């Protein structure tokens, strides 16, 4: 990608981060940490890669994205809003009674959400079903799904991995957000899923490990996934939980906690400064 494109993506990523903070602050709950860690991936997919149409969210020819780590709903909502699926202003209704922006994504209420998720382990199975369905019908749609690194402790995830490899779902690309933290602490201390890449390889995936907050590496990984035939592709993304909000970075405590008013002001000030810097670059 050109430097101009990369600059635009970085600016978009920061705006998406601001939306995450807006939403969780207004909700007084939610999951900012794991939302902030996957911003670059969703920015790349929704602003550069995926075949989608915000004016026609149910377009049959669209690529699909399943947020298997459904608690990162603030990330998905902020991405979709910034992409034009619905007003950015609505992010402030997150988790409010009557809002379509539920705590975890509901495909029937939110334009652009391709699968209802939130119960860990199920989204990746649904993504496998989509990929199988498209392949079976010889349709070119591609399917992307994002898992948390804690989420892969769920047994169903590995049932799904077996299925993906068995049915040679080369239209499926699985991302693992390896920020190394889950609610109770470091994933390696709670219940280690490491080595993640070796496990995925053993399950029949083509695997690569990247810096999940580097647009060039994300772009290359997606290109590799599309070029791979006969097997599903997995990308283990090394990321920083809470990225770009100083006091949230690498803190498990920010997995499922909203910023209070003072914390909100600080986060928005930091992100605004970052945005200004990115715009001036």
């Amino acid at each position, binding site marked *: 990608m050109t430097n101009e494109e990369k600059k635009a993506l970085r600016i978009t990523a920061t705006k998406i981060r601001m939306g995450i903070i807006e939403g969780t602050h207004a909700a007084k709950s939610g999951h900012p940490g794991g939302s902030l860690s996957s911003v670059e991936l969703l920015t790349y997919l929704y602003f550069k890669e995926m075949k989608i149409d915000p004016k026609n969210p149910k377009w*049959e020819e669209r690529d*699909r994205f*399943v947020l298997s780590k459904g608690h990162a709903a603030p990330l998905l909502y902020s991405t979709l809003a910034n992409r034009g699926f619905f007003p950015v202003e609505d992010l402030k209704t997150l988790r409010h009674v009557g809002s379509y922006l539920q705590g975890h994504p*509901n*495909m*029937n209420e939110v334009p652009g959400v*391709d*699968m*209802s998720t*939130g*119960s860990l*382990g*199920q*989204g990746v*199975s*649904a*993504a*496998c*079903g*989509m*990929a*199988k*369905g*498209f392949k*079976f*019908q010889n*349709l070119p*749609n591609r399917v992307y799904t994002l898992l948390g690194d804690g989420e892969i402790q769920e*047994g*169903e995830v590995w*049932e*799904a991995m*077996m*299925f993906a490899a*068995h*049915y040679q779902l080369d239209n499926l690309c699985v991302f693992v957000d390896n920020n190394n933290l889950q609610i109770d602490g470091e994933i390696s201390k709670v219940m280690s899923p490491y080595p993640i890449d070796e496990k995925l390889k053993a399950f029949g995936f083509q695997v690569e490990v990247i810096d999940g907050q580097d647009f060039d590496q994300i772009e290359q990984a997606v290109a590799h996934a599309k070029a791979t035939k006969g097997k599903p592709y997995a990308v283990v993304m090394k990321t920083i939980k809470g990225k770009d909000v100083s006091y949230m970075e690498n803190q498990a405590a920010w997995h499922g906690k909203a910023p209070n008013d003072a914390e909100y002001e600080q986060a928005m000030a930091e992100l605004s400064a970052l945005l200004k810097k990115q715009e001036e670059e």
Partner: protein
Amino acid sequence: MADVKKIATRDSYGNALKALGEKYDNLVVLDADLAGATKTATFQKAFPERHFDCGIAEANMTAVAAGLSTTGLVPFVSSFAMFAAGRAFEQVRNSIGYPHLNVKIGATHAGISVGEDGASHQCNEDLALMRAIPGMVVINPADDVEARAAVEAAYHYVGPVYLRFGRLAVPVFHDEETYKFEIGKGEEVCPGDDITIIATGLMVKEAMDASRALKEEGIACRVINMATIKPLDEEIVLKAARETGKIVTAEEHSIIGGLGEAVCGLLSEKLPTPVRRVGVMDTFGESGPALELLKKYGLSCENLCKVVKEMLGK
């Protein structure tokens, strides 16, 4: 009595899938290593490319079906009731029920008539689990004709449907030529104004036999076949309560959470009426020949006659 044709409704399931598969290209079938037992092998033989074995992994299979349904296919997920409704309950609830996706769950080997495999495989709780999911249609057909009709109706219905089938061969009493199945409609199979048995699944035939026996003792026992547990045909239940004043429910399922409680829930709010529930009495089953187990656990014509007479004070 002349020889009555007996067919297990799991066979009806496999046969119906094959027949529908011939008509509809978008029907696909999923199995978890039980195609031979769920009888979907009948479909698999005819349409191998549309049969997706998922291995012994029901949770994944169920959510895979959810994903498949979003691509325009109509998946029938097949396993034993214990695993389809039990093991994969949360996948049914969150990945199929909550988004209200067009997935059909074909659950065979329901109830204690599973027989020799014993309590671990005798699911007497599936109706309770599936009924509790908002928007879920729950169907428990009584014989081969009804089971095949129910599979077809489920295919045409847009939304999640739970279909309950049995392992045991059961008598066929519906006339294929005349019987019209409709989701949400009960069917009066025996007339009578003294008392009503509302039955579902293999208990319908037991209730019909009971009605015949009771008639000889001067008791006019109405029998309603309630194939659809949810949505419940409220009209036919209220009419029976009004006209006969006493109700017995009969199901090869726990008395907790199934047809009996659905009927009690309705009547207690709209027309309080004495009800007795015949079913598995809050206990696990055991190994043994199906017919012996049905008798032992009170799922029989004889027990229904006894309960009816107790209710009528005779």
